[in-house]
């Protein structure tokens, strides 16, 4: 599959995750979110940026439970719970946020 943004095309897997991590840019993230009818706010970016840092450090995209726990530790309990994260990312916080972060599908999501 390919993703068309501003006349450029980017290779993705069958579920829309970027094939090449290095293709990612914040504009691309905004465009992917808009295709899902989602506007990225500062709160969304906090999670997306966290995931990119996590991937950089561990070379995997974390499963939702791992993400929730890690967010809680980094950003506080009021953000490290599934209610808050599902409000931001209704299609599943790990799945959807990883997609916008340009990461592969999380390890432990089916």
């Amino acid at each position, binding site marked *: 599959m390919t993703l068309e943004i501003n006349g450029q095309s980017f290779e993705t897997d069958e579920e829309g995750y970027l094939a090449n991590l290095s293709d990612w840019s914040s504009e691309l993230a905004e465009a992917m979110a808009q295709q899902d009818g989602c506007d990225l706010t500062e709160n969304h970016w906090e999670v997306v940026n966290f995931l990119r840092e996590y991937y950089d450090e*561990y*070379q*995997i995209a*974390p499963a939702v439970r*791992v993400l929730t726990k890690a967010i809680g530790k980094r950003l506080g309990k009021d953000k490290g719970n599934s209610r808050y994260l599902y409000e931001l990312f209704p299609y599943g916080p790990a799945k959807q946020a990883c997609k916008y972060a340009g990461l592969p599908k999380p*390890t*432990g999501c089916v």
Partner: protein
Amino acid sequence: MSEELQSGIVKKFLYINRRAPHGTNYAQEGLEVALIGAAFDQDVAMAYLDDGVFQLKSGQDTKAIGTKNFSATYRALGDYDVKLVYVERESLERRGLSEDDLMPLVYEDEDDDWEEKPLIHVVSAGEMQKIISESDVLLNF
């Protein structure tokens, strides 16, 4: 497996890793499958024997062979609530390695003010046999 998951039965899974980390996919696949199992609330422990002990060696660098250096991912085991990583002492010794050559893997104990605790337990061949025989499900990589 889905019926067992729904019934809430937690089994003791032991992932046995015997191969060197790079050159084949076994090590990386074994690690990912273990993380997926752990994400589904199974009781997951890891065992490293034979050339598998090289998987945990610190300072791995895959640039020259052009593959992803997934060794950083072992440090995520603790985040996935895997708290037991067994390494066979004899396998280390035969390869001229000791515990000091391994990555310092830790997990954060939620019940103990997030204190970092070591994941790696170096055990004798005899202890490893006991660990293997006490596990419900063995997966070999």
